[in-house]
């Protein structure tokens, strides 16, 4: 259980590298976790090759949701948008390096849900994953 608050998570939570709002941006998505109110907004700029040039997240919530957003943004910069569409929950869990119960899983996956929901223009793609 102590694992849940590994230093990397506390660190990304306290000092996120990608917190902010890009303006102008090519994509902006946001969503919140209805059960706890955690909120994430992601803004993206895409370069001519369809790769993510810049990205940032904004929002509020628990360490798990905010750290995973920061880690997720870090992991997508420079990646082709098409590749990002196939990111799954394991991708985020690998970034976090922890095991999570169902409720906290939703916190961890909120940023991925926002990202993929936005890229696909779909609401709930992830919850069935």
């Amino acid at each position, binding site marked *: 259980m102590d694992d849940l608050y590994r230093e990397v998570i506390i660190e990304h939570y306290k000092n996120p590298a990608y917190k902010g709002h890009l303006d102008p941006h090519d994509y902006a998505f946001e969503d919140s976790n*209805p059960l706890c109110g955690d909120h994430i907004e992601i803004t993206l700029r895409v370069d001519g090759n369809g790769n993510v040039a810049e990205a940032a997240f904004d929002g509020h919530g628990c360490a798990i949701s905010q750290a995973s957003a920061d880690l997720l943004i870090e992991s997508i910069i420079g990646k082709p948008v098409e590749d990002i569409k196939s990111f799954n929950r394991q991708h985020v869990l690998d970034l976090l390096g922890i095991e999570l119960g169902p409720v906290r899983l939703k916190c961890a996956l909120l940023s991925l849900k926002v990202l993929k929901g936005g890229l696909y223009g779909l609401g709930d793609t992830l919850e069935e994953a």
Partner: protein
Amino acid sequence: MTINVSEIRAQFPILQREVRPGVPLVYLDSTATAQKPLAVIAAMDDFYRRSNANIHRGVHTLAEESTALYEDARAKIAGFLHAASPRQVIYTRNTTESINLVAYSWARATLKAGDLVILTEMEHHSNLVPWQILQAERGIRLEFVPVTENGLLDLEVYRQLLAQSPKLVAFTHMSNVLGTINPAAEMIRLAHQAGAVTLLDGAQSVPHFAVDVQALDVDFLAFSAHKMVGPTGIGVLYGKRELLEAMPPFLGGGDMIREVHLRSFKPNALPYKFEAGTPAIAEAVGFGAAVDYLTGIGMEAIAAHEHAITEYALERLEEIPGVKVFGPEASHKGGVAAFTLDCAHPHDVAQILDQDGVAVRAGHHCAQPLHEKFNIPATTRASFYLYSTKDEVDKLVDGIYKVKQYFG
């Protein structure tokens, strides 16, 4: 495909009971509510002793456990129905609330004055009154598929009614009085051809034989846990995803929302959109255990056993002078035998049977229009389940002879 009834009976504590000293219980009232095996009772007991917490909103261990148990049960029920997704399984209180949910949410959003809803003459009050309320409120039109003398639906008239472009066809999969098992797949196919949405009252079918919602292609299915060896206080509405997604919320409150502000709210995703407030959590756990229990024994085996008992019961009852059993032959019938006895009123029959521990129902069984159709105020009804035995049928028959002594 046979079941070991004495082994099964040993798993139901109440079947060990004596109604009065020396008088063992002969429970022939499973159509009203089924008895519960130890596995179901223990699952709920254990939940309250170990895991009880409110669900969804909690991060503590108990809340995670209870949420998992609650959702596991939903997944089991979805599997039992062959539903595409557990999200299509909405917990309600009972069959009645499930049907009302469709009437309040889907129907009020969809039906206009003059729209036709087709029901049948053999419906339980639960599948009549919600539509009568809507008729009074909205001016929808209700038509009824007649019941023939031998207790079957008149499918000729059904086809004629379908030609009038109904918006909804809502009917019982199995009559709780006649025992008639209606040809649901065929009726649903015809309804869809006519452009109607279908609602199946599965209160008596889901407990007694395998029901596959995808094979049936049914739009809505309603049933209750308490009739399928599960607890009271919980039932299910299954629905097709597109329909459920499009429906407005029904009850408002906690859990059914995505966000709430003082003057507005956004509804939650399925199935939570329709589950307002703290749900029947322990009951969901018990419901899951009931589904496990029935699956463990096998719905085919259960249906076969009930069929054998029903055949025997019809044979024995029909041999009693003055007894008239309602409904079709055993081949079209589930485990229900509703009858009249010429010399005595059903209440008196039931009361005298109770002297010997034989528990049957007397009355209109929430199907008063069907009784009116047959010109009788009431029937006595014996009904069977996986734990019923031929020996119990014999006790029923002996009891009826005793009634004849009093009144004959």
